[in-house]
């Protein structure tokens, strides 16, 4: 490991340890003597309590049970968004009429946060998976559409000319030139879309859709188990970190290396 790499880990580690220490002191001393320590232990349980809660919820299955419910909802909702969003984006970018039809809808609906659909979704689909999937799809489809459109429009016209000059037909241009050019944009669209999907599913689960990560957050509050609420928050953070490191970072490295080095 290089010196800078090592330094990065050491300093990052020191920061985390300091943060945990500060947290511990704050919860045991009543936020540094401002309130009764009895309350502060309830409002802000110590890191050890949270750790115990992690083990507890992990062992009794509530953690994975709820997390898996949310993951499945996001997977289905986001999957639908990808399946609809990419063809729609391609159509909008390649056909002016398709663009004229779809653009007003995209422009009107895309600024509406997915969360704003929660009340209607619950009325339409009831308190269940369908409502959650509906708002996840709506909440994550627009970044995918918009990035697909942008990606196709940014395809270098000279590259298309070069491919045609070498005898490529329409399909070959699409597959060998458009697609590789657009993939980095798709990855960006997916990353933003997935971020939206998570936010939206948690909001929906907090206001009524049963089970899931958001539901667990709410239960933590209403039953006085703030440690469980914090466990859920930590789980969310870790989940996003894992997705970022295992999916998006490698994907970007593989599909973007030529673009990044052009930009720098």
């Amino acid at each position, binding site marked *: 490991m290089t010196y800078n790499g090592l330094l990065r880990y050491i300093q990052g580690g020191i920061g985390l340890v300091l943060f945990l220490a500060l947290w511990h002191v704050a919860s045991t001393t009543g936020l540094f003597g401002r309130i009764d320590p009895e309350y502060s232990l309830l409002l802000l349980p110590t890191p050890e309590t949270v750790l115990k809660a992690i083990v507890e919820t992990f062992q009794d299955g509530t953690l994975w049970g709820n997390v898996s419910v949310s993951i499945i909802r996001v997977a289905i909702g986001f999957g639908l968004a990808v399946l609809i969003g990419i063809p729609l984006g391609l159509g909008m970018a390649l056909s002016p009429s398709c663009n004229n039809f779809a653009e007003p809808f995209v422009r009107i609906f895309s600024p509406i946060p997915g969360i704003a659909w929660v009340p209607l979704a619950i009325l339409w689909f009831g308190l269940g998976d369908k409502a959650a999937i509906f708002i996840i799809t709506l909440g994550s489809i627009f970044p995918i559409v918009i990035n697909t459109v942008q990606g196709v429009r940014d395809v*270098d016209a000279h*590259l298309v*000319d070069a*491919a*045609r*000059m070498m*005898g490529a037909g329409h399909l*070959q241009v699409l597959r060998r030139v458009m697609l590789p050019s657009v993939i980095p944009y798709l990855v960006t669209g997916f990353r933003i879309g997935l971020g939206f999907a998570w936010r939206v599913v948690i909001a929906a689960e907090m206001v009524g859709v049963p089970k899931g990560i958001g539901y667990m957050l709410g239960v933590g509050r209403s039953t006085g188990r703030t440690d469980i609420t914090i466990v859920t928050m930590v789980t969310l953070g870790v989940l996003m970190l894992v997705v970022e490191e295992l999916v998006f970072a490698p994907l970007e490295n593989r599909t973007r290396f*030529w673009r990044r*080095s052009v930009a720098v």
Partner: protein
Amino acid sequence: MELVFSNIAKSFKRGAKDRVVALDDISFSVAEGELVCLLGPSGCGKSTLLKMAAGFEFPDTGSVTADGKPVCKPHPDRGMVFQDYALFPWLTVEENIAFGPEMNGTDRREIRERIRRFITLVGLTGFEKAHPHQLSGGMKQRVGIARMLAMSPKVLLMDEPFGALDAFTRMEMQEELTNLWQAAPFTTVFVTHDVEEAVYLADRIAVMTSRPGKLKTIVPVPLSRPRVRTDHDFVQIRNHVLKQYERTQPSAAEYSI
């Protein structure tokens, strides 16, 4: 392959009603195995003419024919080299060169053989697995040339291929192109705004002027290759070409204060 441009005219829309004449009644031909430079200032339509020969653009009136057949779309017979290289940035050097042969269904062994041959020819041995962003401008254009040659075209169309290179790399590339061309004299149309480059490379120079784009004259360059830029004859032809751009009447705008 012989290219014939006959009575080509083209205008572009500017604003609601206004049209700008880009090319005005241009006729000339490029014989089999001849290297013709289209020389002119920017905006004279020389690149547009080249794109018509490639099949990317079309004249309003007149026609471009290749061996008597009108050009109506791009074809691997007419290979083009672009000023900005237009290499596929996600492909390696050899994958870029293989692209053309792959498109017309050349078999694998033949493709491998062509990659090897043209990489050697343009002096890029050792860079087969490099990506375009790892190469210098001159090297990128070598890939552009290798890629074009690998599709075994009958005509080479070069759109200011050395325009983005520094002066020394440009001279080097001009020399190498001359060597390449002498070894296998392709019918070539080379677009440039550099008078010296035109005199160095061309059998004949089509001297174009702008607004509207017109073919002023065609200057033959009867010098043997390799040419020496400081030779008396070379300098004379260069001066003769430069004279074509001297204004006969001073324009009013230039002298108004």
